[in-house]
């Protein structure tokens, strides 16, 4: 702790980031390290093509990997087989693709994309046909619009403002975290009809309020886990979006993944901040593995430009809790991590 204080002061002299850095650092201590290896050059894009910012990654029941990445002229959704070989592009030129934020695969292997440029959440069938659309892209007839400033207009039932993530409960109800300008989580029925929301267009610090809900997943009991990024915490809501609790000791709350099967694990990423603020590599970047009850099992990973280190983990796939696939923003890269068992006893949650 002494060493940490000294380095923080040194940083403050240069860029005055001391308060933020203090919050970025997870306060939990004595967490066992989980050792892991990164599979080199796991994904093989088509010849001559490149991944852009690889913000979104998910697998289906066959182990196929979907990467929704920020490319040009728009974001692209690519499907790879379980060995990382490129299979196909889905949604080429699709109306709802502009600026990727999330991709998730539901239990029926439908592929859902969340685009924070078009404000659209799209459900694709496994063969890539559009099945359902939530939200609406701002119509082009409005012309080139000036960047909006000031307070957000009231949140609407069926319109998003830079949405971030999507999930489902066991009944198939749809949950959307929304987002960078709204600050809420919305619940829809399986047919896409609005049921409830937590939060609003306004950011807030109380339980059930959010400041940039950035990642979200639903566990097998139907509870909704939200990475409440700018509040430096995770919140857990019940199925009707009433807050159950918060987790404040795992750092910034960037993104979250819940594994499948009868025994679910939660992976939470204290991702290093965009821009690699001086000192940030020393206090951020690790991913925590926990139980649903909050017991922390271990942690793994560090920031860095080269594998197996991370450059802003934006999303994780944890269908297999021992094989984590991470998508990174600032390295335009997807890594497959093979975890080994933690080397020490589990620490307590709070």
């Amino acid at each position, binding site marked *: 702790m002494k060493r940490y204080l000294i380095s923080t002061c040194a940083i403050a002299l240069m860029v005055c980031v001391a308060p933020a850095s203090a919050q970025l650092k997870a306060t939990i201590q004595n967490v066992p390290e989980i050792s892991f290896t990164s599979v080199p050059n796991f994904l093989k894009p088509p010849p001559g093509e490149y991944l852009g910012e690889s913000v979104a990654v998910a697998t289906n029941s066959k182990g196929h990997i979907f990467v929704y990445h920020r490319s040009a002229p728009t974001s692209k959704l690519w499907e790879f087989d379980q060995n990382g070989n490129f299979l196909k592009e889905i949604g080429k030129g*699709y109306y709802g693709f502009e600026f990727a934020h999330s991709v998730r695969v539901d239990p029926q292997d439908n592929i859902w994309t969340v685009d924070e440029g078009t404000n659209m959440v799209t459900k694709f069938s496994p063969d890539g046909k559009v099945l359902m659309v939530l939200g609406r892209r701002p119509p*082009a007839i409005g*012309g080139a619009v000036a960047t909006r400033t000031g307070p957000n207009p009231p949140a*609407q039932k069926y319109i998003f403002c830079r949405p971030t993530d999507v999930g489902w409960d066991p009944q198939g109800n749809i949950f959307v975290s929304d987002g960078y300008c709204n600050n809420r989580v919305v619940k829809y029925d399986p047919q896409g009809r609005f049921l409830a929301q937590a939060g609003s267009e306004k950011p807030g610090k109380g339980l059930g309020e959010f400041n940039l809900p950035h990642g979200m997943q639903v566990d097998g009991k139907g509870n909704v886990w939200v990475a409440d990024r700018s509040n430096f915490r995770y919140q857990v809501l019940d199925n009707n979006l009433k807050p159950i609790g918060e987790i404040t000791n795992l750092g910034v709350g960037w993104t979250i993944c819940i594994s499948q099967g009868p025994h679910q694990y939660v992976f939470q990423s204290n991702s290093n901040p965009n821009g690699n603020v001086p000192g940030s590599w020393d206090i951020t970047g690790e991913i925590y593995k926990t139980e649903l009850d909050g017991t922390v099992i271990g942690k793994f990973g560090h920031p860095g430009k080269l594998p197996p280190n991370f450059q802003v983990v934006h999303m994780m796939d944890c269908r297999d809790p021992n094989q984590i696939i991470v998508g990174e923003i600032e390295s335009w890269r997807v890594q497959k991590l093979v975890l080994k068992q933690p080397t020490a006893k589990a620490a307590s949650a709070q």
Partner: protein
Amino acid sequence: MKRFLPLLLAGTILAGYPAVAQNAAPEIPFDGDVNFLKTPNDVYLGEVGGVATNSKGDVFVYTRTGHPFVTLGGSRNFAHGGSQLFQFDRNGRFVREIGKDGYGFMFANQVRVDPQDNVWVVDQMTNMVIKFDPQGRVAMLLGRKAESINIPARPAGAGGGGEGGGGAAGAPGAGRAQDVFDRPTDVAWDAQGDIFVADGQGNARVAKFDKDGKFIKSWGQKGTGPGQFDNVRSIAVDPQGNVYVADGNNHRIQIFDNNGTFKSQIANIGNPQAICMTPGANPMLYVSDSNPPNDIDKAGQIYKMKLDGTIVGKFGRAGKMPKEFGTVNAIDCRNDNNLLVGEIGNLRVQKVTLHPAG
């Protein structure tokens, strides 16, 4: 004026019964097929502005597929792209794209096929009405795309920059006595081939041209009175040449004679966004009381009615499932009881088969 008043009263009487008429309208059983059109793997429909069939059953879809662009590094700001026109065969198989990268395609609003199987496209952003012949060649153009756009954009409806931009003259929404449009929405023809353009979301008028595209006249301006419009969203012409105009936000269809003289109105059908008149001597009218794009919990039904305003029945509601509609902007009704419905909200064309009783 004396003749006009009784007609106006008749319209007002109709307007006095919207709730009763809507509740009384029987539900027409129907099926909806959202997989009728088969797109190749690299073709995705965006918001469907228009859908129409020709005499062979070919299906034309004019859709906002997205990604219009503004170039950097010009003396002004130039914008292109954003919409595409697709053709499918009568079985829904993809045939081709027409007018790829076309100069006049930015914000699809409607496609209609005339009796000679020419395909007419109406674009709300380039302010153009484009007639393609059955082979897909450009046969005639009405309106002109603005040379460049202003950034930040002027308020919607103020037109673009440079020569060819829109702009009002005279009463608000009355437009100019020429083929300069402001967010046009639809096109129709009478038996002589005269052209009627719904103009539109910016202007609030109907413009009439002869079959060769020569301007004849226009009527209408912003307002709520007879012959005035809030915004002109859809248009149809009956065999006698009367013009039916969906007057959005005024919650009515206004009926004019062939020269634009107000005859009557139908005001018990919600907020009409898309209308379609079946062909033949005794047409039926389909009218979509479309839900607003930001809400699927209101409106969304389609009415079937006689030309005198008598409602035969209604079907559907707003939503995202099959047999539900997401902001219908187009109806093709070449075959009565077998419709193609174009949806903005659900990025799709739904084939609707009605099963009327008896």
